[in-house]
């Protein structure tokens, strides 16, 4: 995936939201995007997903310029509760994209059950989304994205509403699906620790008009582990580094 000189303005805003954002993501890479609230992270993700035609610049996914939603891309929305369909049970919500893709019934069932179990909702299959708590809904949205086994996965603050323990589990899940399916994953997060723990590279966006303020390469060893990785001195150093970039920018 390659993003070149991406720019976007919403009508009525005095200045553009995104301004010359450029970066690339290699296959199988996990990137995290951090930046102040309201800077344009969700806007960026929507451009990448082909939901929003950027005012300027280009996004190439799997070698092709994005025009409409590219094949093999899934997204977890920040507004998860509105992205679940209230008339479908949880199981059907998760299964839905698989049906659309023509996955046979048996495999569909299996993948649905598997990904629901992976997010800790093995027994919520027959409930409706509105019968779930906020965090559970968010996990359903993640399960749905995972069940499609996309080649590119975009997640917008996907673990914001879950408790610390579940969050850690989901982080590890993210890394494991990357390893298993070789997905390219982009995660927007506000948690600096998380951004370092999850990613191969952290992209720091500046205040609006957002540009890539810094790209911090995370060279932590591969099988990451909540305890050992986080206590690695390099982790602590990287974390401080990212925080400084965010803050430093905030100060400027």
């Amino acid at each position: 995936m390659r993003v070149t000189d991406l720019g976007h303005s919403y009508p009525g805003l005095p200045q553009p939201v995104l301004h010359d954002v450029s970066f690339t993501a290699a296959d199988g890479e996990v990137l995290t995007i951090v930046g102040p609230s309201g800077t344009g992270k969700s806007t960026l993700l929507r451009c990448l997903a082909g939901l929003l035609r950027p005012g300027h610049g280009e996004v190439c996914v799997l070698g092709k310029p994005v025009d409409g939603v590219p094949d093999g891309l899934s997204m977890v929305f920040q507004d998860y509760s509105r992205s679940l369909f209230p008339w479908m049970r949880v199981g059907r919500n998760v299964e839905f994209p698989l049906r659309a893709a023509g996955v046979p019934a048996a495999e569909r069932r299996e993948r649905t059950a598997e990904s629901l179990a992976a997010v800790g909702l093995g027994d919520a299959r027959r409930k409706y989304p509105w019968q779930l708590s906020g965090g559970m809904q968010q996990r359903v949205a993640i399960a749905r994205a995972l069940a499609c086994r996309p080649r590119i996965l975009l997640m917008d603050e996907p673990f914001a509403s879950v408790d610390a323990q579940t969050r850690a589990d989901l982080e590890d899940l993210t890394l494991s699906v990357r390893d298993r399916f070789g997905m390219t994953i982009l995660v927007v997060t506000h948690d600096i620790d998380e951004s370092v723990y999850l990613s191969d590279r952290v992209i720091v966006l500046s205040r609006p008009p957002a540009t890539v303020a810094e790209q911090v390469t995370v060279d932590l060893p591969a099988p990451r582990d909540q305890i050992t990785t986080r206590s690695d001195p390099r982790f602590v150093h990287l974390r401080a580094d990212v925080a400084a970039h965010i803050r430093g920018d905030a100060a400027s």
Partner: protein
Amino acid sequence: MSLDVLPRRAAARRGHRPALSTFVLGLSGLVLLAAAEEVVSRSGLVSTQYLPPASVILARLGELLTNAPFLADLGATAGSAVLGLVIAVPVGLVVGLVLGLVPAAHTATRIVVDLLRPVPAVAIVPLLVLVTGTGRASVVITIVSATVWPVLLNTIHGVRDVDGVALQTARLYGARLPRRLAEIVLPSAAPVIAAGVRVSIGLALVIAVAAELLIGTDSGVGAYLLAATQGGSHTDYAFAAVCAAGLLGLVVNWAARALERRFLPWSEGEPR
């Protein structure tokens, strides 16, 4: 004030969907309709005397639209329709609000409402003539009795459909009923109510002409139609008059939509 986003948003929308192409597309739909009619008319099913082709109707329509007496008739029909709506819409709105908000009121009136609703407005015309005579009043009452329902039902639907979280928020912040009504329930239901009103607008014109036909009023498109068909063969003019009523509906609806866009900018959803 320069940040006032509404006009800009409208401008953006216009920029996105140019007015010209809207006009051209809309016109193409109408042209398609006319062409279909032309084909049917010329297919030899019946003499074009009985089903004149669109080209002829259009020519007659042009004549009618510059003919003062006919315009007066058109005005009379529009006037009755507007008068009927002016009565029916507030009634439907208020009753709909009450029934939508007070379950007991809804339960108490449901049977009566459901029994009255399907009684054809046009079937009560003779009874109306007995009571209120052959004048405009009968036409207006007929219109009211037909157009009140879409507004009423859509209001009930819209009021019940207000997002629970929004309503709870308002309750939580101590908003009393009148305020909750004015600031939460109505704005949120407004697009749905507006859709009901637009159904009623079309219906009002339909019923106005129907009632004029049945009552045999002295003015209005219905009276014109009766006169045109009474002496024998002026079907082309009759069809043109019918089309004029359709055009009137088009114009009124366009105006309603413009008002809606102006006052209920959120009714077409958040922009994407």
